[in-house]
Protein backbone atom coordinates (compact mmCIF):
# COMPACT_ATOMS: atom_id res chain seq x y z
CA UNK A 1 0.00 0.00 0.00
CA UNK A 2 2.86 2.36 0.76
CA UNK A 3 4.43 1.68 -2.63
CA UNK A 4 1.03 2.38 -4.21
CA UNK A 5 0.85 5.66 -2.29
CA UNK A 6 4.30 6.66 -3.43
CA UNK A 7 3.46 5.73 -7.04
CA UNK A 8 0.19 7.66 -7.14
CA UNK A 9 1.81 10.72 -5.54
CA UNK A 10 4.57 10.68 -8.14
CA UNK A 11 2.04 10.26 -10.95
CA UNK A 12 -0.12 13.13 -9.70
CA UNK A 13 2.93 15.33 -9.12
CA UNK A 14 4.38 14.69 -12.55
CA UNK A 15 1.08 15.22 -14.37
CA UNK A 16 0.20 18.44 -12.52
CA UNK A 17 2.89 20.88 -11.40
CA UNK A 18 0.33 22.49 -9.07
CA UNK A 19 0.40 19.38 -6.90
CA UNK A 20 2.48 20.15 -3.81
CA UNK A 21 3.24 17.58 -1.14
CA UNK A 22 3.39 18.96 2.39
CA UNK A 23 4.54 16.91 5.33
CA UNK A 24 4.87 17.74 9.01
CA UNK A 25 8.28 16.07 9.22
CA UNK A 26 6.76 12.61 8.77
CA UNK A 27 7.04 9.95 6.07
CA UNK A 28 10.72 9.06 6.19
CA UNK A 29 11.67 7.17 2.99
CA UNK A 30 8.04 7.18 1.80
CA UNK A 31 8.66 10.31 -0.25
CA UNK A 32 12.07 9.41 -1.71
CA UNK A 33 10.63 8.84 -5.18
CA UNK A 34 8.45 11.95 -5.03
CA UNK A 35 11.36 14.13 -3.94
CA UNK A 36 13.48 12.73 -6.76
CA UNK A 37 10.81 12.98 -9.47
CA UNK A 38 9.11 16.23 -8.34
CA UNK A 39 11.83 18.10 -6.45
CA UNK A 40 10.19 21.54 -6.44
CA UNK A 41 6.87 20.18 -5.25
CA UNK A 42 7.87 18.84 -1.84
CA UNK A 43 7.72 20.99 1.30
CA UNK A 44 8.64 19.69 4.75
CA UNK A 45 6.80 22.25 6.86
CA UNK A 46 8.45 21.08 10.06
CA UNK A 47 6.85 19.81 13.23
CA UNK A 48 4.06 22.37 13.00
CA UNK A 49 0.86 20.74 11.84
CA UNK A 50 -1.43 23.70 12.53
CA UNK A 51 0.68 25.97 10.39
CA UNK A 52 0.93 23.27 7.72
CA UNK A 53 -2.84 23.18 7.25
CA UNK A 54 -3.05 26.98 7.09
CA UNK A 55 -0.22 27.06 4.56
CA UNK A 56 -2.01 24.39 2.51
CA UNK A 57 -5.17 26.52 2.58
CA UNK A 58 -3.25 29.56 1.36
CA UNK A 59 -1.63 27.56 -1.43
CA UNK A 60 -4.99 26.09 -2.45
CA UNK A 61 -6.45 29.60 -2.64
CA UNK A 62 -3.84 30.41 -5.29
CA UNK A 63 -4.74 27.36 -7.37
CA UNK A 64 -2.22 24.86 -6.07
CA UNK A 65 -3.29 21.32 -5.20
CA UNK A 66 -1.77 20.62 -1.79
CA UNK A 67 -1.56 17.07 -0.45
CA UNK A 68 -0.99 17.22 3.29
CA UNK A 69 0.59 14.16 4.88
CA UNK A 70 0.75 13.29 8.55
CA UNK A 71 -0.16 10.60 11.03
CA UNK A 72 -3.90 10.32 11.59
CA UNK A 73 -3.36 11.17 15.27
CA UNK A 74 -2.29 14.63 14.04
CA UNK A 75 -3.97 14.94 10.64
CA UNK A 76 -6.92 15.35 11.16
CA UNK A 77 -7.15 15.11 14.96
CA UNK A 78 -4.66 17.74 16.10
CA UNK A 79 -5.64 20.17 13.35
CA UNK A 80 -9.35 19.60 13.14
CA UNK A 81 -10.20 23.28 13.54
CA UNK A 82 -7.75 24.34 10.84
CA UNK A 83 -9.30 21.76 8.50
CA UNK A 84 -12.78 23.03 9.35
CA UNK A 85 -12.17 26.76 9.09
CA UNK A 86 -9.24 27.20 6.74
CA UNK A 87 -10.05 24.46 4.22
CA UNK A 88 -13.44 22.74 4.37
CA UNK A 89 -15.37 25.98 4.97
CA UNK A 90 -14.60 26.95 1.37
CA UNK A 91 -14.26 23.44 -0.08
CA UNK A 92 -10.64 24.17 -0.93
CA UNK A 93 -8.95 21.39 -2.87
CA UNK A 94 -6.67 19.95 -0.21
CA UNK A 95 -6.15 16.22 0.26
CA UNK A 96 -5.30 15.24 3.83
CA UNK A 97 -3.62 11.88 4.28
CA UNK A 98 -3.77 10.50 7.82
CA UNK A 99 -1.41 7.53 7.99
CA UNK A 100 -1.08 4.88 10.67
CA UNK A 101 -4.76 4.99 11.69
CA UNK A 102 -6.00 2.54 14.30
CA UNK A 103 -3.35 0.60 16.20
CA UNK A 104 -0.55 0.64 13.61
CA UNK A 105 1.79 2.29 16.13
CA UNK A 106 1.02 -0.41 18.66
CA UNK A 107 4.29 -0.06 20.53
CA UNK A 108 4.19 3.74 20.80
CA UNK A 109 1.06 4.24 22.82
CA UNK A 110 -1.88 6.59 22.84
CA UNK A 111 -0.26 9.65 21.25
CA UNK A 112 0.27 7.80 17.95
CA UNK A 113 -2.84 5.63 17.94
CA UNK A 114 -6.04 6.94 16.41
CA UNK A 115 -9.50 5.48 16.59
CA UNK A 116 -11.52 8.70 16.49
CA UNK A 117 -10.64 10.22 13.12
CA UNK A 118 -13.62 9.01 11.07
CA UNK A 119 -16.03 10.27 13.71
CA UNK A 120 -14.33 13.66 13.91
CA UNK A 121 -13.88 14.21 10.20
CA UNK A 122 -17.22 13.06 8.87
CA UNK A 123 -19.16 15.70 10.80
CA UNK A 124 -17.31 18.53 9.05
CA UNK A 125 -19.36 19.89 6.14
CA UNK A 126 -17.73 19.75 2.67
CA UNK A 127 -15.09 17.27 3.87
CA UNK A 128 -15.09 13.89 2.14
CA UNK A 129 -13.74 10.88 4.03
CA UNK A 130 -12.09 7.90 2.34
CA UNK A 131 -10.75 4.73 3.92
CA UNK A 132 -9.09 2.30 1.48
CA UNK A 133 -8.48 -1.36 2.33
CA UNK A 134 -5.70 -2.26 -0.11
CA UNK A 135 -3.37 -0.75 -2.69
CA UNK A 136 -6.02 -0.82 -5.43
CA UNK A 137 -8.57 1.01 -3.31
CA UNK A 138 -5.89 3.46 -2.19
CA UNK A 139 -5.02 4.39 -5.76
CA UNK A 140 -8.71 4.68 -6.61
CA UNK A 141 -9.29 6.93 -3.57
CA UNK A 142 -6.31 9.17 -4.34
CA UNK A 143 -7.29 9.65 -7.97
CA UNK A 144 -10.91 10.28 -6.97
CA UNK A 145 -9.77 12.81 -4.35
CA UNK A 146 -7.71 14.64 -6.95
CA UNK A 147 -10.54 14.64 -9.49
CA UNK A 148 -13.14 15.79 -6.94
CA UNK A 149 -11.11 19.01 -6.59
CA UNK A 150 -12.43 19.53 -3.09
CA UNK A 151 -11.51 18.82 0.54
CA UNK A 152 -10.80 15.17 1.33
CA UNK A 153 -9.52 13.25 4.33
CA UNK A 154 -7.96 9.93 3.33
CA UNK A 155 -7.39 7.46 6.15
CA UNK A 156 -4.65 4.88 5.84
CA UNK A 157 -4.56 2.15 8.48
CA UNK A 158 -2.55 -1.06 8.62
CA UNK A 159 -0.99 -1.07 5.17
CA UNK A 160 0.21 -4.64 4.76
CA UNK A 161 -2.96 -6.69 5.16
CA UNK A 162 -2.62 -7.95 1.60
CA UNK A 163 -4.72 -7.39 -1.50
CA UNK A 164 -8.50 -7.56 -1.42
CA UNK A 165 -8.86 -6.98 -5.13
CA UNK A 166 -7.01 -8.35 -8.15
CA UNK A 167 -7.28 -5.10 -10.09
CA UNK A 168 -8.43 -1.51 -9.58
CA UNK A 169 -12.13 -1.52 -8.63
CA UNK A 170 -14.34 -0.08 -11.33
CA UNK A 171 -16.78 1.88 -9.18
CA UNK A 172 -18.02 5.41 -8.77
CA UNK A 173 -17.14 7.55 -5.78
CA UNK A 174 -19.43 6.68 -2.88
CA UNK A 175 -20.17 3.12 -3.98
CA UNK A 176 -19.47 0.08 -1.85
CA UNK A 177 -17.58 -2.84 -3.36
CA UNK A 178 -18.79 -6.40 -2.98
CA UNK A 179 -15.75 -8.47 -2.06
CA UNK A 180 -17.53 -11.74 -1.24
CA UNK A 181 -20.79 -12.94 -2.77
CA UNK A 182 -23.26 -15.21 -1.01
CA UNK A 183 -25.14 -17.86 -2.95
CA UNK A 184 -28.30 -16.59 -1.32
CA UNK A 185 -27.88 -13.60 0.96
CA UNK A 186 -28.96 -13.95 4.55
CA UNK A 187 -26.44 -11.70 6.27
CA UNK A 188 -24.24 -8.84 5.09
CA UNK A 189 -20.88 -7.79 6.46
CA UNK A 190 -19.76 -4.22 5.82
CA UNK A 191 -16.13 -3.36 6.52
CA UNK A 192 -13.55 -0.68 5.92
CA UNK A 193 -9.76 -0.44 5.83
CA UNK A 194 -7.76 -3.06 7.68
CA UNK A 195 -10.87 -4.94 8.84
CA UNK A 196 -12.04 -5.96 5.35
CA UNK A 197 -9.70 -8.97 5.41
CA UNK A 198 -11.05 -10.01 8.81
CA UNK A 199 -14.63 -9.66 7.59
CA UNK A 200 -13.94 -11.95 4.64
CA UNK A 201 -12.12 -14.49 6.84
CA UNK A 202 -14.96 -14.57 9.37
CA UNK A 203 -17.56 -14.93 6.61
CA UNK A 204 -15.57 -17.79 5.05
CA UNK A 205 -15.41 -19.55 8.39
CA UNK A 206 -19.07 -19.07 9.21
CA UNK A 207 -21.36 -19.63 6.29
CA UNK A 208 -21.95 -19.32 2.57
CA UNK A 209 -24.94 -17.02 2.91
CA UNK A 210 -22.94 -13.89 3.72
CA UNK A 211 -22.16 -10.99 1.41
CA UNK A 212 -19.09 -8.93 2.34
CA UNK A 213 -18.78 -5.30 1.27
CA UNK A 214 -15.77 -3.03 1.41
CA UNK A 215 -16.32 0.70 2.02
CA UNK A 216 -13.51 2.85 0.62
CA UNK A 217 -15.75 5.94 0.48
CA UNK A 218 -17.24 6.75 3.87
CA UNK A 219 -18.45 10.23 2.94
CA UNK A 220 -20.21 10.89 0.71
CA UNK A 221 -21.60 7.37 0.58
CA UNK A 222 -24.23 5.80 -1.66
CA UNK A 223 -27.22 5.73 0.72
CA UNK A 224 -29.38 3.73 -1.68
CA UNK A 225 -26.85 0.91 -1.81
CA UNK A 226 -26.82 0.70 1.97
CA UNK A 227 -30.61 0.78 2.15
CA UNK A 228 -30.75 -2.12 -0.31
CA UNK A 229 -28.16 -4.11 1.61
CA UNK A 230 -30.15 -3.56 4.80
CA UNK A 231 -33.39 -4.58 3.09
CA UNK A 232 -31.87 -7.78 1.74
CA UNK A 233 -30.24 -8.88 4.99
CA UNK A 234 -31.59 -10.42 8.17
CA UNK A 235 -28.69 -8.88 10.08
CA UNK A 236 -25.65 -6.73 9.42
CA UNK A 237 -22.17 -6.81 10.93
CA UNK A 238 -19.95 -3.75 10.52
CA UNK A 239 -16.16 -4.07 10.93
CA UNK A 240 -13.76 -1.19 11.52
CA UNK A 241 -10.55 -0.43 13.41
CA UNK A 242 -12.18 2.67 14.87
CA UNK A 243 -14.25 3.69 17.86
CA UNK A 244 -17.74 2.25 18.05
CA UNK A 245 -18.89 5.85 18.28
CA UNK A 246 -19.24 7.88 15.12
CA UNK A 247 -17.50 5.60 12.64
CA UNK A 248 -18.72 3.33 9.86
CA UNK A 249 -20.87 1.32 12.25
CA UNK A 250 -22.65 4.45 13.38
CA UNK A 251 -23.06 5.58 9.79
CA UNK A 252 -24.68 2.31 8.71
CA UNK A 253 -26.91 2.39 11.80
CA UNK A 254 -27.96 5.98 11.04
CA UNK A 255 -29.02 5.10 7.51
CA UNK A 256 -30.59 1.79 8.50
CA UNK A 257 -32.61 3.18 11.38
CA UNK A 258 -34.06 5.86 9.18
CA UNK A 259 -34.82 3.89 6.04
CA UNK A 260 -34.58 0.16 6.63
CA UNK A 261 -34.18 -0.98 10.23
CA UNK A 262 -32.19 -4.16 10.71
CA UNK A 263 -30.22 -5.63 13.59
CA UNK A 264 -26.60 -4.44 13.45
CA UNK A 265 -23.53 -5.71 15.30
CA UNK A 266 -20.60 -3.33 15.47
CA UNK A 267 -17.15 -4.89 15.52
CA UNK A 268 -15.18 -1.86 16.54
CA UNK A 269 -13.11 -0.33 19.32
CA UNK A 270 -14.74 0.12 22.70
CA UNK A 271 -14.65 3.54 24.36
CA UNK A 272 -11.16 3.12 25.77
CA UNK A 273 -7.48 3.81 25.13
CA UNK A 274 -4.99 0.96 24.76
CA UNK A 275 -3.65 -0.25 28.07
CA UNK A 276 -0.59 -2.26 27.08
CA UNK A 277 2.37 -2.21 24.73
CA UNK A 278 2.88 -4.93 22.14
CA UNK A 279 2.68 -5.93 18.50
CA UNK A 280 -0.17 -4.82 16.26
CA UNK A 281 -1.60 -8.31 16.59
CA UNK A 282 -1.33 -8.10 20.35
CA UNK A 283 -3.23 -4.81 20.47
CA UNK A 284 -5.97 -6.19 18.22
CA UNK A 285 -6.36 -8.92 20.83
CA UNK A 286 -6.51 -6.36 23.62
CA UNK A 287 -9.36 -4.63 21.81
CA UNK A 288 -11.14 -7.83 20.74
CA UNK A 289 -10.48 -7.24 17.06
CA UNK A 290 -8.35 -10.35 16.38
CA UNK A 291 -9.85 -13.14 14.30
CA UNK A 292 -10.78 -15.57 17.14
CA UNK A 293 -12.48 -12.85 19.18
CA UNK A 294 -14.31 -11.40 16.23
CA UNK A 295 -15.36 -14.86 15.03
CA UNK A 296 -16.80 -15.70 18.45
CA UNK A 297 -18.57 -12.36 18.73
CA UNK A 298 -20.15 -12.58 15.28
CA UNK A 299 -21.00 -16.26 15.68
CA UNK A 300 -22.85 -15.59 18.94
CA UNK A 301 -24.66 -12.63 17.40
CA UNK A 302 -25.89 -14.64 14.41
CA UNK A 303 -26.69 -17.70 16.57
CA UNK A 304 -28.72 -15.61 18.94
CA UNK A 305 -31.00 -14.47 16.21
Amino acid at each position, binding site marked *: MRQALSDVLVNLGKSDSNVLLLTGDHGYALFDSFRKECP*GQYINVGI*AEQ*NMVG*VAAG*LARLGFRPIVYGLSAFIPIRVL*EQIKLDVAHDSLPVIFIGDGAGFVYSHLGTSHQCTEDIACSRVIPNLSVYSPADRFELTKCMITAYQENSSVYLRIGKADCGDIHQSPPNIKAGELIKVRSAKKVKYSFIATGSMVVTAIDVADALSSDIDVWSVPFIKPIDHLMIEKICQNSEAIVVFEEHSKYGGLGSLIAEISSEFSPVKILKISVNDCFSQKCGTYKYLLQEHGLDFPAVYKNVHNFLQGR
Partner: protein
Amino acid sequence: MKFDPKILRKTVLDMAYAGSSVHIGCAFSIIEILSVLYKNHLHYPENNPLSKQRDYFLLSKGHGVMAQYACMKELGWLSDEDIKNYFSNGSDLKGLSDSRIDGIEVTSGSLGHGFSVGVGIAMGIKIRKTKQKTYVLVGDGEINEGPIWEGALFAAHHKLSNFMVIVDENGFQAMGKTQDVIELGSIQSKFESFGFYAITVDGHNSIAIDKAIEKLWNSDNKKPKVLIAKTVKGKGVSFMENDNSWHYSRLNQESYQKAISLISASSI
Protein backbone atom coordinates in the same frame (compact mmCIF):
# COMPACT_ATOMS: atom_id res chain seq x y z
CA MET B 1 -11.38 61.68 0.58
CA LYS B 2 -11.72 57.95 0.27
CA PHE B 3 -10.82 55.96 3.38
CA ASP B 4 -11.00 59.04 5.60
CA PRO B 5 -10.60 57.62 9.13
CA LYS B 6 -13.46 59.78 10.39
CA ILE B 7 -15.83 58.37 7.75
CA LEU B 8 -14.62 54.83 8.45
CA ARG B 9 -15.26 55.22 12.17
CA LYS B 10 -18.71 56.65 11.50
CA THR B 11 -19.53 53.68 9.27
CA VAL B 12 -18.43 51.34 12.06
CA LEU B 13 -20.69 53.18 14.48
CA ASP B 14 -23.59 53.05 12.02
CA MET B 15 -23.16 49.29 11.70
CA ALA B 16 -22.67 48.69 15.40
CA TYR B 17 -25.74 50.76 16.22
CA ALA B 18 -27.89 49.23 13.48
CA GLY B 19 -26.91 45.69 14.45
CA SER B 20 -26.49 46.27 18.17
CA SER B 21 -23.14 44.57 17.72
CA VAL B 22 -20.03 44.34 19.89
CA HIS B 23 -16.27 44.63 19.14
CA ILE B 24 -16.33 48.37 18.44
CA GLY B 25 -13.04 48.92 20.31
CA CYS B 26 -11.37 46.16 18.25
CA ALA B 27 -12.37 47.88 15.01
CA PHE B 28 -11.37 51.39 16.09
CA SER B 29 -7.76 50.50 16.87
CA ILE B 30 -7.10 49.42 13.25
CA ILE B 31 -8.88 52.21 11.37
CA GLU B 32 -5.77 54.16 10.31
CA ILE B 33 -3.90 50.96 9.41
CA LEU B 34 -6.69 49.83 7.10
CA SER B 35 -7.17 53.32 5.72
CA VAL B 36 -3.51 53.50 4.64
CA LEU B 37 -3.45 49.94 3.31
CA TYR B 38 -6.57 50.28 1.17
CA LYS B 39 -5.73 53.79 0.01
CA ASN B 40 -2.07 53.40 -0.88
CA HIS B 41 -0.92 49.80 -0.87
CA LEU B 42 -3.50 47.14 -1.68
CA HIS B 43 -3.77 46.65 -5.41
CA TYR B 44 -7.05 45.32 -6.81
CA PRO B 45 -7.01 45.40 -10.63
CA GLU B 46 -10.26 46.85 -11.95
CA ASN B 47 -11.42 47.17 -8.34
CA ASN B 48 -12.12 43.44 -8.40
CA PRO B 49 -11.83 41.78 -4.97
CA LEU B 50 -11.40 38.40 -6.67
CA SER B 51 -8.78 39.44 -9.24
CA LYS B 52 -6.08 36.80 -9.54
CA GLN B 53 -3.52 39.58 -9.71
CA ARG B 54 -4.60 41.22 -6.46
CA ASP B 55 -2.59 41.79 -3.34
CA TYR B 56 -3.89 39.79 -0.39
CA PHE B 57 -5.03 41.32 2.86
CA LEU B 58 -6.00 38.87 5.58
CA LEU B 59 -7.67 40.17 8.69
CA SER B 60 -6.56 37.47 11.08
CA LYS B 61 -8.08 39.29 14.04
CA GLY B 62 -11.62 38.83 12.78
CA HIS B 63 -12.97 40.83 15.70
CA GLY B 64 -12.03 44.04 13.86
CA VAL B 65 -14.07 43.14 10.80
CA MET B 66 -16.36 46.19 10.99
CA ALA B 67 -13.35 48.33 10.10
CA GLN B 68 -12.82 46.18 7.02
CA TYR B 69 -16.51 46.37 6.08
CA ALA B 70 -16.21 50.17 6.31
CA CYS B 71 -13.33 50.09 3.80
CA MET B 72 -15.22 47.70 1.55
CA LYS B 73 -18.08 50.17 1.50
CA GLU B 74 -15.67 52.87 0.33
CA LEU B 75 -14.60 50.54 -2.48
CA GLY B 76 -18.21 49.99 -3.50
CA TRP B 77 -18.03 46.30 -2.58
CA LEU B 78 -20.66 46.80 0.10
CA SER B 79 -23.76 48.97 -0.12
CA ASP B 80 -25.55 51.35 2.24
CA GLU B 81 -28.14 48.59 2.62
CA ASP B 82 -25.47 46.16 3.81
CA ILE B 83 -24.48 48.63 6.50
CA LYS B 84 -28.04 49.44 7.49
CA ASN B 85 -29.05 45.79 7.68
CA TYR B 86 -26.05 44.64 9.69
CA PHE B 87 -26.97 41.65 11.86
CA SER B 88 -30.51 41.52 10.47
CA ASN B 89 -31.95 38.07 9.88
CA GLY B 90 -30.80 36.61 6.58
CA SER B 91 -27.99 39.15 6.08
CA ASP B 92 -24.52 38.13 4.92
CA LEU B 93 -22.16 40.18 7.06
CA LYS B 94 -21.32 38.47 10.30
CA GLY B 95 -19.71 39.69 13.48
CA LEU B 96 -16.46 37.93 12.59
CA SER B 97 -14.78 37.57 9.19
CA ASP B 98 -16.34 35.11 6.75
CA SER B 99 -14.31 34.22 3.66
CA ARG B 100 -17.46 33.72 1.59
CA ILE B 101 -17.80 37.52 1.38
CA ASP B 102 -15.89 38.81 -1.65
CA GLY B 103 -13.03 40.91 -0.35
CA ILE B 104 -12.53 38.87 2.82
CA GLU B 105 -9.82 36.28 2.39
CA VAL B 106 -10.11 34.19 5.52
CA THR B 107 -12.69 33.04 8.04
CA SER B 108 -11.51 34.33 11.37
CA GLY B 109 -12.54 34.96 14.91
CA SER B 110 -10.95 31.78 16.05
CA LEU B 111 -7.51 33.34 16.30
CA GLY B 112 -4.18 32.37 14.82
CA HIS B 113 -5.61 31.10 11.53
CA GLY B 114 -5.12 33.97 9.12
CA PHE B 115 -1.39 34.17 9.77
CA SER B 116 -0.69 30.66 8.45
CA VAL B 117 -3.08 31.02 5.52
CA GLY B 118 -1.27 34.26 4.64
CA VAL B 119 2.07 32.46 4.85
CA GLY B 120 0.70 29.86 2.42
CA ILE B 121 -0.48 32.56 0.02
CA ALA B 122 2.91 34.29 0.21
CA MET B 123 4.63 30.96 -0.44
CA GLY B 124 2.40 30.35 -3.45
CA ILE B 125 3.10 33.82 -4.82
CA LYS B 126 6.82 33.18 -4.43
CA ILE B 127 6.50 29.91 -6.36
CA ARG B 128 4.50 31.69 -9.07
CA LYS B 129 7.15 34.45 -9.14
CA THR B 130 4.68 37.34 -9.32
CA LYS B 131 5.01 40.68 -7.58
CA GLN B 132 1.86 40.39 -5.46
CA LYS B 133 2.09 41.11 -1.77
CA THR B 134 0.48 39.51 1.24
CA TYR B 135 -0.52 41.42 4.37
CA VAL B 136 -1.79 39.77 7.53
CA LEU B 137 -3.18 41.86 10.37
CA VAL B 138 -3.07 40.21 13.80
CA GLY B 139 -4.00 41.47 17.23
CA ASP B 140 -1.48 41.58 20.06
CA GLY B 141 -3.70 39.27 22.08
CA GLU B 142 -3.88 36.97 19.07
CA ILE B 143 -0.17 36.34 19.12
CA ASN B 144 -0.69 34.26 22.25
CA GLU B 145 -1.66 31.60 19.71
CA GLY B 146 0.97 28.97 18.87
CA PRO B 147 0.42 28.78 15.09
CA ILE B 148 1.52 32.43 14.80
CA TRP B 149 5.02 31.39 15.80
CA GLU B 150 4.95 28.21 13.73
CA GLY B 151 4.09 30.40 10.75
CA ALA B 152 6.76 32.96 11.64
CA LEU B 153 9.44 30.26 11.61
CA PHE B 154 8.18 29.03 8.24
CA ALA B 155 8.02 32.52 6.70
CA ALA B 156 11.58 33.30 7.74
CA HIS B 157 12.95 29.90 6.71
CA HIS B 158 11.46 30.27 3.23
CA LYS B 159 12.54 33.91 2.99
CA LEU B 160 9.02 35.12 2.25
CA SER B 161 10.00 38.73 1.59
CA ASN B 162 6.55 39.33 0.03
CA PHE B 163 4.87 38.72 3.40
CA MET B 164 4.08 41.51 5.86
CA VAL B 165 2.56 41.06 9.28
CA ILE B 166 0.91 44.03 10.96
CA VAL B 167 0.45 43.71 14.72
CA ASP B 168 -2.31 45.83 16.22
CA GLU B 169 -0.69 46.42 19.60
CA ASN B 170 -3.57 47.99 21.47
CA GLY B 171 -2.52 46.43 24.76
CA PHE B 172 -5.81 44.69 25.43
CA GLN B 173 -7.32 41.29 24.88
CA ALA B 174 -10.72 39.91 25.77
CA MET B 175 -10.26 39.69 29.53
CA GLY B 176 -7.92 42.58 30.23
CA LYS B 177 -4.53 44.14 29.53
CA THR B 178 -2.15 41.95 27.58
CA GLN B 179 0.56 42.56 30.18
CA ASP B 180 -1.73 41.17 32.87
CA VAL B 181 -3.01 38.18 30.89
CA ILE B 182 0.14 36.98 29.09
CA GLU B 183 3.11 39.33 29.09
CA LEU B 184 4.32 39.78 25.52
CA GLY B 185 7.47 41.77 26.20
CA SER B 186 8.94 43.37 23.09
CA ILE B 187 6.94 42.21 20.10
CA GLN B 188 9.51 43.78 17.78
CA SER B 189 12.45 41.88 19.25
CA LYS B 190 10.45 38.65 19.30
CA PHE B 191 9.77 38.90 15.56
CA GLU B 192 13.34 40.03 14.90
CA SER B 193 14.64 36.95 16.66
CA PHE B 194 12.42 34.87 14.36
CA GLY B 195 14.11 36.45 11.33
CA PHE B 196 11.71 39.28 10.46
CA TYR B 197 12.57 42.84 9.52
CA ALA B 198 10.58 44.94 11.99
CA ILE B 199 9.46 48.54 12.50
CA THR B 200 7.33 49.89 15.33
CA VAL B 201 5.13 52.86 14.57
CA ASP B 202 2.31 55.01 15.95
CA GLY B 203 -0.69 53.07 14.62
CA HIS B 204 -2.89 56.15 14.40
CA ASN B 205 -0.46 58.29 12.42
CA SER B 206 -1.37 57.62 8.80
CA ILE B 207 1.73 59.28 7.37
CA ALA B 208 4.00 57.32 9.69
CA ILE B 209 2.23 54.05 8.87
CA ASP B 210 2.53 54.74 5.16
CA LYS B 211 6.23 55.53 5.38
CA ALA B 212 6.93 52.51 7.54
CA ILE B 213 5.22 50.18 5.08
CA GLU B 214 7.27 51.68 2.24
CA LYS B 215 10.43 51.32 4.26
CA LEU B 216 9.66 47.71 5.09
CA TRP B 217 9.11 46.79 1.44
CA ASN B 218 12.34 48.54 0.50
CA SER B 219 14.30 46.71 3.20
CA ASP B 220 16.24 43.45 3.18
CA ASN B 221 14.59 41.50 0.40
CA LYS B 222 15.22 38.11 1.95
CA LYS B 223 13.19 38.62 5.10
CA PRO B 224 9.49 38.69 5.91
CA LYS B 225 8.37 42.00 7.41
CA VAL B 226 6.46 43.04 10.46
CA LEU B 227 4.95 46.38 11.33
CA ILE B 228 4.11 46.76 15.00
CA ALA B 229 1.45 49.43 15.27
CA LYS B 230 1.07 50.97 18.71
CA THR B 231 -2.64 51.66 18.91
CA VAL B 232 -5.41 52.56 21.32
CA LYS B 233 -8.37 50.24 21.69
CA GLY B 234 -11.49 52.27 21.00
CA LYS B 235 -9.47 55.09 19.39
CA GLY B 236 -11.47 58.10 18.23
CA VAL B 237 -14.22 58.14 20.84
CA SER B 238 -12.92 59.35 24.17
CA PHE B 239 -15.28 57.33 26.34
CA MET B 240 -14.29 54.13 24.51
CA GLU B 241 -10.52 54.65 24.49
CA ASN B 242 -8.60 52.13 26.58
CA ASP B 243 -11.87 50.96 28.09
CA ASN B 244 -12.03 47.24 27.44
CA SER B 245 -15.76 47.15 28.12
CA TRP B 246 -16.13 48.35 24.50
CA HIS B 247 -14.95 44.91 23.43
CA TYR B 248 -18.41 43.84 24.58
CA SER B 249 -20.65 46.89 24.95
CA ARG B 250 -23.46 47.82 22.58
CA LEU B 251 -24.54 51.30 21.60
CA ASN B 252 -27.84 52.86 22.58
CA GLN B 253 -29.24 55.97 20.94
CA GLU B 254 -27.53 58.28 23.40
CA SER B 255 -24.08 56.70 23.25
CA TYR B 256 -24.33 56.37 19.47
CA GLN B 257 -25.08 60.06 18.98
CA LYS B 258 -22.44 61.08 21.48
CA ALA B 259 -19.85 58.93 19.71
CA ILE B 260 -20.78 60.35 16.30
CA SER B 261 -20.46 63.92 17.55
CA LEU B 262 -17.12 63.20 19.22
CA ILE B 263 -15.74 61.86 15.96
CA SER B 264 -17.10 64.80 14.00
CA ALA B 265 -15.43 67.22 16.40
CA SER B 266 -12.11 65.36 16.66
CA SER B 267 -8.96 66.45 14.89
CA ILE B 268 -7.84 62.95 13.80
